[in-house]
């Protein structure tokens, strides 16, 4: 049943789309990071007048002269975009739109003029509009593989320069790199990628081959080299999957199927990628929510214990054992509570399994008692929480502009002497936690050790 794979024509098509996908994906990564994703779209449209003019001049339909025409038109288009954005108040997106539509309009004029003048053998020029991967022949694939290889070699050679120019242009200029030249080389490579892709996927969908694999690859890694390689792999895979799918049916167009394959890879990456993917993000958010809920629950219980105490004292097992009521007046029952009541049973069950609380029934009522471990954790949470309160109350006096707001824990957030002065303030405001664990825990580490044991 796999006999159709041995069809030489299909093999050429497969080879061509593979090479095209790899090179477009790799170059597309740089285009994406340079903030010029849609340049591929513009260049693909802008190539049309170049192709038509090349045909008019040479009367030749071979891939090479048409590619040269497209490349020249593409380079002129990039220069036009630079000119418009640099010398007028028109913003980049509008400049891209203008160049795209006007060049393409001129292309359509030339194309129809050629068709109407009946200048001989023009059939096949419109293949560039939608692409005709299925019509690729051996010679085309040779040209494509040479161009694709050249693209990969160039991006490897100039990897360092492209990285620098994409990341920090002013620094690149400052240390003496010819930023404009590097930019032009990058644009030229994008033009080349577009030009080889035109025949396979056509003007409109060429943009996808540059953008989609690169965006997909970005989800998987934080390293540029890996991202470029992955984008190449995704692009190549889309090329192969698309061509194979289109070989299954007589009326399935190759170009759009390649794009759809790339889109599926993108969607997979967006949802499933570790750490940057949506599922991972949702999971992290859910876990954080749960952690906050558990902490709030423990703090709530702790404060209920505290209410019954006249002075600060060290807790014993006996003191903790009776517990606080869980139903009716328990956590979640009034507005000063920190937990939502309908979540209480689930959180309580979880904490009990961790050995932080014990739940017992007494006269139709549920009671929740902290264990000694639980008290240690609860004290830690309450203490930290109150330090925060105090900090926010006195922020202005405490040189708070020197606080590193991105740190997640208070002791990373504040310097030790700042914490010491906060402890002092805690005493002044009589907000010190009243119920002490038997072994006075140090203020670091305690919480992490129990929240992360699941």
């Amino acid at each position, binding site marked *: 049943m796999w006999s159709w794979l041995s069809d030489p024509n299909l093999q050429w098509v497969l080879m061509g789309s593979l090479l095209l996908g790899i090179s477009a994906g790799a170059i597309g990564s740089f285009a994406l990071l340079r903030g010029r994703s849609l340049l591929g779209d513009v260049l693909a449209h802008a190539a049309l007048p170049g192709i038509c003019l090349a045909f008019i001049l040479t009367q030749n339909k071979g891939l090479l002269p048409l590619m040269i025409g497209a490349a020249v038109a593409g380079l002129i288009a990039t220069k036009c975009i630079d000119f418009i954005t640099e010398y007028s108040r028109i913003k980049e997106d509008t400049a891209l739109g203008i160049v795209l539509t006007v060049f393409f309009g001129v292309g359509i004029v030339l194309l129809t003029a050629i068709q109407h003048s009946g200048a001989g053998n023009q059939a096949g020029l419109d293949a560039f509009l939608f692409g005709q991967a299925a019509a690729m022949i051996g010679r085309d694939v040779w040209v494509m593989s040479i161009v694709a290889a050249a693209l990969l070699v160039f991006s490897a050679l100039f990897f*360092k320069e492209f990285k620098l120019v994409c990341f920090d242009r002013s620094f690149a200029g*400052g240390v003496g*790199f010819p930023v404009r030249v590097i930019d032009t080389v990058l644009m030229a490579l994008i033009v080349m990628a577009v030009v080889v892709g035109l025949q396979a996927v056509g003007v409109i969908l060429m943009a996808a081959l540059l953008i989609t694999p690169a965006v997909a690859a970005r989800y998987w890694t934080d390293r540029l080299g890996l991202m470029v390689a992955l984008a190449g792999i995704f692009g190549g895979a889309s090329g192969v999957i698309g061509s194979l799918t289109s070989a299954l049916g007589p009326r399935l167009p190759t170009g759009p199927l390649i794009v759809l394959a790339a889109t599926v890879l993108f969607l997979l990456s967006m949802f499933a990628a570790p750490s940057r993917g949506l599922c991972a993000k949702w999971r992290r958010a859910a876990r954080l929510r749960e952690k906050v809920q558990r902490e709030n629950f423990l703090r709530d219980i702790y404060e209920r214990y505290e209410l019954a105490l006249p002075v600060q004292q060290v807790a014993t097992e006996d003191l903790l054992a009776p517990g606080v009521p869980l139903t009716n007046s328990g956590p979640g029952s009034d507005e000063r509570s920190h937990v939502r009541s309908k979540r209480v049973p689930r959180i309580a069950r979880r904490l009990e399994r961790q050995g932080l609380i014990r739940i017992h029934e007494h006269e139709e009522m549920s009671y929740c008692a902290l264990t000694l471990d639980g008290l240690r954790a609860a004290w830690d949470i309450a203490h930290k929480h109150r330090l925060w309160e105090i900090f926010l109350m006195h922020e202005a006096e405490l040189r708070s502009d020197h606080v*590193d*707001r991105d740190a997640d824990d208070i002791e990373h957030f504040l310097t030790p002497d700042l914490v010491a002065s906060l402890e002092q303030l805690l005493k002044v405001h009589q907000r010190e936690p009243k119920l002490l664990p038997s072994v006075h825990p140090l203020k670091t580490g305690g919480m992490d050790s129990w929240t992360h044991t699941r």
Partner: protein
Amino acid sequence: MSLTTNTESTPEQPSDSRTGGNSHPASPPLSETHRETPAIEVHDFSVAYRKRPVIWGIDFKIPPGHLVGVVGPNGAGKSTLLKGILGLVPPASGWVKIHGQSYKRQRKRVGYVPQRESVDWDFPTNAFDVVLMGRYGHLGLIRRPRAADKEIAWEALRKVGMADYATRQISQLSGGQQQRVFLARALAQNADVYFMDEPFAGVDAATESAILELLADLRSQGKTVVVVHHDLQTVSQYFDWVVLLNMRLIAHGPTEDVFTVDTLQKTYGGRLTILADTAHSVAQRTP
């Protein structure tokens, strides 16, 4: 118009009093020849945006080995001066010399720390990689960083206390840590003259002290550091040389001579009332 005369006369006097004739060719030469050429010399330097001048006719010389604060109100053209010196914006007039030669020829001796907002922190790269970029200028086109370059980058990361974060993606660093990575990149450039655009803006206490330590270290090595700074309270504490700027050069020279109520008044105009604290502290310091 009275100000024009001021801008011309003020800078000369203080630099005379301290560095003895550095700015006067006629004065007797110092024994060490390298002290002869200023680290930075700016002459009649103007930058305009369309028809509006941003900085106008700036003239100054800074001898090597100083920590220089560029101070002035918002919109005074502080960042523009830096960018102009580094050739990132075209000047409308004037020239700049770094250690006696044009900036183009001295590029490898110049390090630059841009404002933190100027780059995309979501870029796929880690802290070490950013620091390694500091070596790119020495490498030139196509050549890749070698083991020696990587060693220099590690050293720079260690100096700013960020070695533990080397493999972190840069968006996962806090603001202060990002600033330190930028500083490490400049260190890796191994330059003689550094330009830093607001490195103290929005950083935490730890980073601030790390930067200060670094600046002191650089000066002890005889390097010149020019820092755009907006916090008047700390100027006299951080810098031994100031350039007061408000579109024109108001004054420049050693901090104790130049950073006075009088020059601040000229720089900030009526707005100095808001800065009464500074004026007060400055007034107390200067007899």
